[in-house]
């Protein structure tokens, strides 16, 4: 029984980047709990200044290796908005396709490599190589599927190439897209297995109401497109995000925190998207949701993992549809648009990165040079909510041993899938 505990987990494993968990319990009462990001900051906001829009787009994906496509896409949308460029429907479809590859890749990595070991009681998925080869191979297969999907569309997952301002500088090969489609169809079987695997894992029955924020689109489940939406019913155009989202600094964390209007915490990510966009899901994804017991609205942060599985299924289904559409309409060559003659402008790009809503905003001067950059990253938006959950959850388990509490907190943090390397690049201060 942990009447007294002083938990400090340094450099939490199986998360992206460096973060520490601290929890202090005195006399059976929780005194302090926090998750601090200790990753060295990289200052993108500083060195993006003075760069051309080409360079900005190129650098943007380097914010994060795991959600590189999202960052690139957000930057492209912002730049294209700033210069009033319009890309073809075909390019939009291809960008969506790359997005689905990334979401799949990121979620599979999280679910199999980072989360599953907690439930299977091994230090890493690779430790199952001998005892449960099936699971390891399925994980690898799904990763490969996601990676190859990105490869077909944008060359590679981490730091996509050829995903440029205005469109694509090469014509996608129909044969490889059809081959991809076959593999996606086969991938649904692996998703089925994934659903059965994760159904076996019991998530804690913890709930806490909060506000869920994501993009929302009337036609599609939003990753690449949509308006900003909150579960409290508010809709606003993505480029007005600053009306609602503001950031603040905590001295113990190199990442920033964000509030939604006057609410000091809110949640973004798979669970938020699912809560806000359930109707947009494809049939197999709905089936997966039912199998995993996800009903919306869902207030259990541990269910974020299940929401990710549902989204994986959705991404595969949606990708099949997109490829079908591309093959049907035929792929037309489109030259990458020449850079607009240098001019001033500013624009916002908002997308749903695997971990939640991501904003890029740039201002260019008369020479087309970036003068100001603002990036708001999902993990930063989630940090306050995560700490609120930790504060609410710890008392529920305070009777357990110190190590069990520590482990439970680790599992909670992992459920959020924090991406710390991203989160240390946030820009302007909220006040």
């Amino acid at each position, binding site marked *: 029984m942990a009447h007294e505990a002083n938990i400090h987990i340094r450099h939490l494993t199986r998360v992206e980047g460096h973060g520490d968990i601290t929890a202090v319990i005195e006399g059976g009462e929780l005194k302090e709990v926090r998750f601090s990001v200790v990753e060295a900051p990289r200052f993108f906001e500083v060195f993006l200044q003075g760069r051309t829009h080409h360079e900005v787009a190129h650098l943007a994906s380097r914010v994060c290796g795991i959600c590189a496509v999202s960052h690139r896409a957000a930057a492209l949308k912002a730049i294209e908005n700033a210069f009033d460029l319009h890309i073809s429907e075909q390019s939009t479809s291809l960008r969506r396709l790359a997005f689905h590859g990334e979401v799949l890749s990121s979620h599979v990595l999280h679910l199999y490599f980072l989360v599953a070991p907690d439930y299977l009681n091994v230090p890493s998925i690779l430790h199952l190589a001998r005892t449960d080869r099936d699971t390891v191979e399925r994980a690898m297969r799904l990763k490969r599927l996601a990676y190859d999907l990105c490869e077909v569309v944008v060359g590679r997952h981490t730091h996509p190439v050829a995903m440029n301002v205005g469109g694509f500088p*090469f*014509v996608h*090969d129909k044969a490889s897209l059809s081959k991809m489609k076959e593999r996606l169809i086969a991938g649904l079987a692996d998703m089925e297995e994934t659903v059965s695997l994760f159904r076996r894992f019991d998530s804690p029955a913890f709930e806490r109401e909060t506000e869920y924020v994501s993009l929302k689109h009337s036609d599609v489940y939003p990753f690449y497109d949509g308006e900003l939406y909150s579960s409290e019913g508010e809709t606003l155009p993505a480029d007005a995000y600053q009306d609602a989202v503001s950031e603040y600094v905590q001295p113990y964390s190199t990442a920033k925190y964000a509030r939604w209007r006057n609410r000091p915490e809110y949640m973004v990510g798979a669970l938020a998207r699912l809560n806000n966009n359930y109707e947009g899901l494809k049939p197999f994804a709905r089936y997966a949701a039912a199998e995993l017991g996800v009903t919306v609205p869902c207030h259990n942060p541990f269910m974020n993992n299940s929401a990710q599985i549902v989204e994986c299924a959705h991404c595969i289904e949606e990708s099949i549809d997109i490829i079908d559409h591309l093959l049907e309409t035929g792929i037309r*060559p489109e030259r990458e648009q020449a850079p607009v003659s240098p001019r001033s402008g500013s624009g916002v790009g908002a997308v749903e990165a695997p971990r939640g809503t991501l904003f890029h905003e740039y201002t260019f001067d008369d020479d087309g040079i970036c003068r100001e950059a603002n990036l708001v990253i999902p993990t930063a938006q989630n940090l306050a909510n995560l700490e609120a959950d930790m504060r609410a959850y710890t008392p529920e388990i305070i009777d357990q041993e110190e190590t069990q509490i520590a482990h439970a907190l680790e599992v909670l943090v992992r459920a959020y899938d924090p991406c710390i390397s991203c989160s240390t690049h946030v820009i302007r201060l909220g006040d």
Partner: protein
Amino acid sequence: MFRHRALPSYRVMSSEDLLDFLGHLMKSEPVMVPMERPDQPGFHVFDWLSRPEDLVLNYTTTTLPPKKAFFPPTETLFRFRGDDPPKLTPVKESGPFVLMGIHPCDLAAIEALDKAYSYPPPDRRWEYNRSRALLIGVDCVPDEYCFCDSLGVSQARRPGDLFLTQIDRGYLIEIHTPAGAETIAAARTDVANEADLSAAANRQRQKAGAFQGRMKTGPDRLADMLEAESFQDIWEDIASRCYGCGSCNTTCPACFCFTMSDELDWDLNSGVRMRSWDACQLQDFDLVAGGHRFREKRWQRVRHRWHRKFLYLYRRFGRPFCTGCGRCSRACTADINILDETNRIIEAASRGRTHD
């Protein structure tokens, strides 16, 4: 049936019959042809054909020359396994193939490489791959970089088996070898009449008038000039612009330098030896252990390129190892044009400059 007839002989074939013929060929052997790049429409590439209609015979140029059919940019020479004793298995492709749509300059280059690679001891791998191929040439229209007529190969036919010239009613087919005759015998063709022959001759005349640039002397005099003088200032000027990227070598149909390297499998015991195209303009081409470089300055490497093409191999094999295809000028990322620079040398030599 054509076997005893004097070669070359002539036939005519319609464009539709040509595609039928191609379809027929493809049934028995793989066919490599120029086609439009799927990823970059408007540009062409030599590749293995899967549908006859992908053939493009009126292409201007390709980045890589068709020699890649016999001598791929990277290929496996043999596999090994570290047994006791080690097991070494040569890797070779099986069966004959057809290489179609070769411009005269590229035919000439293949002939040049035949010479170089069969010089004793012969390169069996080249010989083997060459012996598998039936070569079908095609007539062309020069672009802004072409100067093959200055090197006397604009009408080259050897070592092709068949040669196609576009005429009104399809293609005039020149049959140059018995193998060519045998292959074409299976196709629907018509006798070539006077009008066909004169249409083809007309096209040759048009071609001869279409070159935008000429080399200001013949290869023989050029070799003498290069031997007689150092031209260091010209080499240095070119070198100040040159990246040393080697693209002029790697796009050249008559370059044939290569390097070899091993690649292990994941068992760390078996693997392959590969050979890949190399380029004398690269900084490390002549680097040896201990850090010695024998052409240390970029201008020495530039000079080497010209000397090798127009002097050394000219003396050794009796022909320049440049066919005027223009690929290197087009590929040069630094705007170095082989014809312009060669003419600069010729002019300097003709002005009777002295050594520096």
